[in-house]
């Protein structure tokens, strides 16, 4: 239910974006309004996983692990959006699909870490061990990402890329800022909605697994 509502709002907002705004970068700039919020959602999901992992190791409440797991999957979906829309935006603006700059590289590794997290979970059968190990990876991953960002940033400042023309964050005129903010809000709602649904799924699945486990004679 939450999702349906939220999804609708999201699409509606996008329609809003289409109308009032156009730019010197051309219409492709509008990709920003879905790319940046998607990145924000992915990053949020990632942080949630990391923080919940830390709290889990402290409190050992299995619910935390279930939420973390859900957040990881939702985050993975948003990362996919982020990693596809990024290059699509980059190609017309930068002239290249990919550039190993700090932000892009960090987002790539966030994606890879999400994948690694899922793979790890897939390889462990015992729920308690799975929760523990996922928490370890979650924490390590969260601490790692700033380092990856710093690494690439340091690399770039010393090896300036001649082709780069950053569509960074120029001072946004009011109208666009509003659109962006609305979009961020919508994506956040989308994240929460997905998270709730995914959590519901996880709870159902856990119940089934427990029943199966206790049914074995």
């Amino acid at each position, binding site marked *: 239910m939450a*999702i349906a509502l939220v*999804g609708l709002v*999201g699409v509606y907002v996008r329609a809003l974006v289409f109308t009032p705004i156009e730019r010197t970068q051309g219409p492709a700039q*509008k990709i920003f309004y879905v790319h940046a919020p998607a990145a924000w959602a992915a990053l949020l999901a990632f942080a949630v996983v990391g923080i919940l992992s830390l709290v889990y190791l402290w409190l050992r409440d299995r619910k935390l692990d279930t939420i973390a797991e859900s957040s990881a999957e939702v985050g993975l979906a948003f990362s996919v959006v982020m990693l596809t829309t990024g290059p699509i935006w980059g190609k017309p603006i930068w002239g290249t699909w990919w550039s190993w700059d700090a932000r892009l590289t960090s987002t790539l590794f966030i994606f890879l870490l999400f994948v690694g997290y899922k793979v790890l979970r897939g390889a462990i059968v015992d729920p308690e061990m799975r929760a523990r190990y996922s928490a370890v990876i979650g924490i390590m991953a969260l601490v790692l990402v700033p380092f990856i960002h710093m690494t690439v940033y340091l690399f770039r400042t010393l090896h300036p890329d001649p082709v780069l023309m950053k569509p960074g964050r120029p001072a946004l005129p009011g109208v666009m800022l509003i659109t962006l903010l609305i979009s961020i809000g919508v994506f956040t709602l989308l994240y929460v909605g997905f998270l709730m649904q995914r959590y519901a799924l996880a709870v159902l*699945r856990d119940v089934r697994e427990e029943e199966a486990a206790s049914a074995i004679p």
Partner: protein
Amino acid sequence: MSGRRRPQVQYPDNGAYMVAAYIIVAVVVLLYGISLAVRIKKER
């Protein structure tokens, strides 16, 4: 709008990218939402 002359502003012609991106976002979001709904249905 097509009949009017706009002497100064010349937009780069990259609308296709925008459309592609927006389509992808919609597709991914919808697919994921559907996958969740389907998986929940299976569990119930």
